[in-house]
């Protein structure tokens, strides 16, 4: 499922975007409630983030699941580390862990 070119491309994205969201749709028009919920959380934290619309690229759509060993979209990466999907992001938003991670990103920027 995850071919070498796709892996390299995802590596590149993960390494070059401090806050990176693989999602369905984009920031303006999320095409899935779970993706939209993560976008809303990130916007509320006022952090710059990059999104990849997996609906536009079947190789990434399937490849990212294997890359992260995670079966669903959305998927959030912060500083090269896989954070989780919608439920985890919302939980970390509620308990303050997300603010901590994003503060580190902002602090260095």
């Amino acid at each position, binding site marked *: 499922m995850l071919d070498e070119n796709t892996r390299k491309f995802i590596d590149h994205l993960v390494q070059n975007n401090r806050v990176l969201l693989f999602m369905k749709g984009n920031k303006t028009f999320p095409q899935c*409630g779970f993706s939209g919920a993560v976008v809303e959380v990130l916007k509320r934290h006022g952090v710059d983030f990059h999104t990849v619309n997996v*609906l536009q690229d079947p190789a990434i759509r399937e490849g990212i699941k294997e890359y992260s060993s995670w079966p669903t979209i959305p998927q959030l990466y912060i500083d090269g580390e896989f954070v989780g999907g919608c439920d985890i992001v919302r939980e970390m938003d509620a308990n303050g862990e997300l603010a901590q991670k994003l503060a580190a990103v902002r602090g260095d920027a």
Partner: protein
Amino acid sequence: MSVGTDRAALLHDRVVAALAPAALELVDESHLHAGGKGKQSHFKLVVVAAAFEGRALLARHRLVHDAVGELLATKQLHALSIHAYTPAEWLARGEVMPQSPPCRGGSKTD
């Protein structure tokens, strides 16, 4: 839902077998989603299990993913919202289920 695809029962049984939960609530939210009414495609799963003690959220979700297995991987399930608590956490939050986000209609098949 066609005969032989009672995913709710299958999902329930797999999680029970793998995690021996102290509490389990499975809510079929398919009707809230594009093309999902009656499809058993979108579920919210609240699992309370001692197996989650000392494990971070990622590890807890991976345990549930492993239990559910190919149901997610083969897209028999479109979405599974997972809320994994230890028995102590579940009591602390007053045994209240979290809300799921609304659908936005992007992909109707998988």
